[in-house]
């Protein structure tokens, strides 16, 4: 009898410890990025593009990477939204919420969601070769868009699914066509869902390096057209860290801090946006 009590006691301690460990790992990560990055973070870092010899320790900043990342993430999120919103609406309005086709589509999207970004990168690269596109902002955006489509569709889908079916039916009976129904009723109801999807995909694409590694190129300048290559934060961090020069490595930590802050902001924003919806797919 008492062996049971002891066993339960031990496991309770283990459970609490594990939970604590999971949380501590998050704080540890943020703490060490802060601790390492803060000292070398400067105004110049985030307002200047790299000067000549930046990777050898000379002056300049990572503005090229910040802007490049914003372009890449912004571009792919906007493009992704144009593709994803109709799909999410189609799944919920034209198809009954539980049709086999819709289920199969959801399964495919979930599977796509799990595909490693390096595979998207390789695929995007293959497409680039096929259509004769060079490594550029455009190629990066296209690749990232492919990657965020499943994320966006499913994020919106989860929210639209919570729209009561009666509401959609009621609108039909008022004589609205299906297209009007989709746009008016559902869009209004799912605005927070769209917001979540946008934030999740923005966060995901701003932090992803593997998929743009082959496709967006890397440059010290801020791109002025879609056909120019574009830098991005994760790769800037990676390249700075790969140099043997301590000052450059320090700047990698500072860049990591910049990226972390952006990601945390997005996390907080999407929590606020989704506060009403308890059952949403989180950033997983």
């Amino acid at each position, binding site marked *: 009898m008492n062996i049971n009590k002891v066993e339960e006691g031990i496991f309770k301690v283990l459970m609490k410890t594990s939970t604590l460990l999971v949380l501590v790992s998050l704080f540890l990560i943020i703490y060490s990025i802060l601790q390492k990055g803060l000292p070398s973070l400067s105004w110049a870092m985030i307002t200047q593009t790299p000067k000549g010899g930046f990777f050898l320790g000379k002056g300049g900043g990572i503005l090229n990477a910040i802007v490049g990342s914003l372009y890449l993430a912004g571009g792919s999120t906007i493009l992704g939204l144009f593709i994803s919103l109709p799909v999410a609406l189609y799944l919920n309005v034209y198809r009954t919420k539980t049709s086999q086709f819709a289920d199969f589509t959801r399964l495919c999207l979930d599977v796509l969601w799990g595909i490693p970004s390096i*595979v998207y990168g390789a695929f995007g690269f293959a497409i680039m070769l096929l259509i004769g596109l060079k490594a550029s902002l455009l190629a990066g955006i296209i690749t990232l868009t492919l990657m965020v489509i499943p994320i966006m569709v499913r994020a919106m889908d989860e929210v639209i699914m919570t729209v009561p079916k009666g509401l959609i039916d009621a609108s039909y009976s008022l004589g609205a066509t299906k297209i009007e129904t989709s746009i008016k009723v559902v869009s209004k109801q799912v605005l927070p869902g769209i917001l979540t999807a946008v934030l999740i995909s923005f966060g995901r694409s701003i932090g992803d390096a593997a998929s743009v590694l082959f496709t967006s190129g890397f440059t010290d300048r801020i791109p002025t057209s879609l056909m120019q290559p574009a830098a991005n934060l994760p790769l800037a961090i990676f390249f700075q860290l790969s140099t043997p020069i301590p000052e450059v490595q320090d700047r990698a930590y500072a860049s990591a801090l910049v990226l972390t802050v952006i990601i945390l902001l997005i996390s907080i924003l999407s929590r606020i946006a989704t506060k009403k919806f308890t059952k949403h797919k989180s950033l997983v």
Partner: protein
Amino acid sequence: MKGLTYFSIALLFLILIGLIYKSVPILKETSFGNLFFSTEWQPLKMKFGLLPFIISTLYVTIVAVVISVPLCLLTAIYLSEYADKRVIAFVNPLIDILAGIPSVIFGIWGIIEVVPLVRDYIAPAFGTTSSGYTILTGGIVLSIMIFPIIIHVLLEVFETIPEDLKNASLSVGATKWQTVKLVILRKAAPGVISAIVLGLSRAFGETLAVLMVVGNVIMIPISPLDPGYPITALIANNYGEMMSIPLYDSALMLASLILFVIVLVFNFISRRILKNIERKIA
């Protein structure tokens, strides 16, 4: 609308076809054995042995899962069965934040904290020396990266277990822990396996974080304190040269195809299982 929906399904098959198409040249030129059972990687000599990379990937993934799964199971059981609402309300958003952290940040953190830990403490404790850039380091970093997805899926699985089933066990005088151990975990077993497989496939395809801490030495790692060179790192590190050497790009595309197929199968099976669990409950 319809067209875009079909497009999103087709994307899955497009990627598959694209990667197969690009992998055909190397599969034609090189024998199966030389690709998958050879340890020789010398692109200039047209030797593309993928074995060290495949082994490294498997090794890192297994280490990550072995570390992660017990912690995630304990955490998920605690959150779903023991913790009160305030704890859950506090923990959930933090796990979501962890999920959003980009892999390059995990990689940097691995270099700052985990590499020295392995180099200065773990390796000496086992009587060896190490640079700190090892399979174990990669495994530790990855294990934390996959916390959120495993915990998230586990929580959803535990949520599907009917309260009345737990009550059935409690009502014959079982303790909460006995109920967890004998009933909940057993009932949740397929879901738990799905959660693990999803975590596994996430770890499997992770690139930058692993690449930064695992050493990238082409060899077959034996001990977890050996360095390794996972498939994803192979692809990422060689994108620059791949167009200049014949068949090199095809070899890397084949590597991507391998990743894709394995992850695809893992995901498909576990999503299927999860879907069925949901349907049975509904």
